[in-house]
């Protein structure tokens, strides 16, 4: 069985969508409106071919001059002149001046064939680009000949076994103005450039790819200083590797709430809350902890500048500057309106690819909604989470809930996507606001269902157990007051207890002294009694003696 062989384009993302690249040895049509990136696209195909895959290529330019082309792509770091000297690329500018040409009688385009054939053979080219061949139609008038010759040209390219890209300007009703799609039927790629809400997005779609599976979606793509990148981030399957390693949140008490160890590595965490509830601080200490453990982090800030974040974090004893200095932390700050959503996603993935972080923070994702609708933001985050999970990168999003009523609502609808959701909430009581932190969900681990009071102090973030009194949850100074009250009552009770003890002791002493005095009294009484007994005995004895003596005397 012979399967269609493919030629990799080397364009980031495109080879994934096409499952390997363009059909090898066949022509591919790339169509799109003016400025949709056709020329750049095909030029990248050639340059990557020459540089990465050792496949020389011929670029036949019908519109731009060779020198202009070289200058245009120089901004992407491609030195066409050098590549031409190295015999890896040949630029051929086919120039047709209508006014110079007179047509008389039958002709064919053998001249073009010979030129192209010569260029291909002199380089041993495997790749050919014809940009934009439709220019022939404006230069030559005999349509019948042109069409027949184009058909012959594409057949001839196949015979030459070169992988060709033919570009075509998009027509009103058809993919290309001259209906080139009729001739090139193996692979058709459509490029589009849309502007919605004043923000432009480039879109790529594979209209047709004969003999191959391919992604059929519209894929956004980006042209920047590194050329074209297509975003194939919508992963169709959910088969990421998972890790049971844990990542500390940087707040010991929060780790305790999360089964004692923190978040899962490669998980996604959403921190949502109303304004000023300390979402950025949570993110900051998360990053700080990670960097301290030698992990690499990127902080994508959509609201504050890096300097601002570093300064603000300093006030809660989180020193991010240190991590910036030793290269573990990277900031990327941009206004959401700078780019379309897709551009944001792309720039995030690009930075991630380059920096290879363990953890990234997006702060806040809520601002992205200014450049897209809620569903677009959700789709973006879905793809981002997919991408990051595949790369085993832990991500923390912060999201602003606009008012208290909405706090429970799923922010941007992504709470179902994330693995852990922390909610920071204002608790207003006694004329003061305090922060309460809940773990709304945390997949795959035992987590606390308790509300904790979240305290931001000079030393950092702390979670304090809230006081559950008869009046409900107490936080802040109410909690403090309650604690004081409790302390007082304890002291009072202690005091009372000791007084009673002393009283008893005193009573005992009194009683004991009473007992001893009674004893003494009894003894003296006994003595008294004994004394009278003895006296009585003595008296009796004496009286008896006397009586005896008396009797004796009488008897005498």
């Amino acid at each position: 069985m012979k399967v269609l062989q493919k030629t990799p384009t080397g364009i980031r993302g495109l080879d994934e969508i096409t499952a390997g690249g363009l059909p090898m040895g066949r022509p591919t049509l790339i169509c799109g409106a003016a400025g949709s990136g056709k020329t750049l696209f095909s030029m990248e195909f050639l340059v990557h071919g020459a540089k990465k895959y050792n496949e020389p290529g011929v670029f036949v330019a019908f519109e731009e001059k060779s020198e202009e082309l070289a200058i245009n792509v120089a901004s992407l770091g491609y030195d066409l002149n050098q590549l031409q000297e190295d015999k890896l690329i040949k630029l051929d500018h086919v120039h047709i001046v209508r006014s110079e040409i007179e047509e008389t009688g039958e002709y064919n385009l053998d001249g073009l064939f010979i030129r192209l054939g010569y260029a291909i053979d002199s380089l041993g080219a495997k790749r050919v680009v014809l940009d934009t061949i439709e220019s022939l139609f404006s230069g030559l008038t005999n349509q019948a000949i042109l069409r027949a010759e184009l058909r012959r040209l594409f057949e001839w390219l196949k015979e030459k076994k070169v992988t060709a890209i033919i570009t075509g300007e998009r027509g009103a009703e058809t993919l290309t103005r001259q209906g080139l799609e009729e001739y090139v039927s193996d692979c058709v790629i459509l490029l589009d450039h849309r502007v919605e809400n004043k923000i432009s997005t480039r879109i790529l779609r594979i209209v047709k790819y004969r003999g191959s599976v391919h992604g059929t979606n519209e894929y956004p793509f980006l042209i920047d200083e590194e050329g074209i990148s297509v975003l194939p981030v919508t992963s169709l399957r959910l088969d990421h590797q998972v890790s049971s390693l844990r990542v500390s949140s940087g707040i010991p008490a929060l780790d305790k709430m999360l089964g004692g160890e923190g978040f899962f590595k490669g998980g996604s965490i959403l921190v949502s809350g109303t304004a000023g509830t300390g979402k950025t601080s949570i993110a900051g200490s998360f990053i700080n902890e990670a960097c301290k453990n030698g992990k690499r982090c990127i902080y994508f800030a959509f609201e504050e500048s890096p300097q601002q974040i570093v300064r603000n974090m300093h006030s809660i004893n989180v020193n991010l500057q240190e991590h910036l200095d030793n290269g573990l932390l990277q900031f990327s700050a941009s206004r959401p309106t700078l780019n379309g959503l897709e551009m944001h996603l792309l720039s995030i993935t690009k930075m991630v690819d380059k920096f290879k972080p363990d953890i990234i923070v997006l702060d806040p994702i809520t601002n992205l909604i200014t450049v897209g609708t809620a569903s677009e933001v959700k789709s973006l985050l879905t793809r981002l989470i997919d991408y990051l999970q595949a790369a085993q990168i832990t991500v923390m999003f912060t999201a602003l809930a606009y008012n208290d009523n909405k706090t429970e609502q799923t922010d941007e609808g992504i709470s179902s996507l994330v693995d852990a959701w922390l909610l920071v909430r204002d608790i207003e009581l006694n004329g003061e606001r305090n922060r309460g932190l809940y773990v709304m969900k945390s997949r795959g681990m035992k987590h606390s269902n308790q509300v904790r009071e979240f305290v931001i102090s000079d030393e950092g973030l702390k979670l304090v157990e809230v006081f559950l009194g008869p009046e409900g949850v107490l936080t802040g100074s109410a909690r403090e007051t309650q604690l004081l009250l409790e302390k007082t009552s304890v002291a009072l009770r202690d005091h009372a207890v000791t007084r009673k003890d002393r009283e008893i002791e005193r009573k005992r002493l009194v009683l004991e002294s009473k007992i001893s005095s009674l004893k003494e009294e009894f003894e003296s009484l006994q003595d008294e009694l004994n004394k009278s007994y003895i006296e009585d005995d003595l008296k009796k004895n004496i009286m008896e003696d006397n009586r005896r003596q008396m009797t004796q005397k009488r008897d005498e």
Partner: protein
Amino acid sequence: MEEIEQEELWELRLYVAGKTARSVTALTNLKRYCEEHLKGKYVIEVIDLLVHPQLAEGDQILAIPTLVKKVPEPIRKIIGDLSNEEKVLVGLNIRPAAKFE
């Protein structure tokens, strides 16, 4: 007289690809027009691109056959088998287009 001849020398190049019927027709036609209108004032160079493919780029040759007139200025290219005499003569500036009614 000589000066004029110097000025009025037609340098003509006919690009062909092999000896096809069409290129033979073109060359025959060209020779006939030149003999009729430019006798002694022309040079015809036939370039076979199958032999010299590298020459196609220089004169921006796409179609075969192509007749290129470099001198006298302006440069003109006449493509096809040159079967339409009027067009060829206009293209070669032998007969100005304005003269035709």
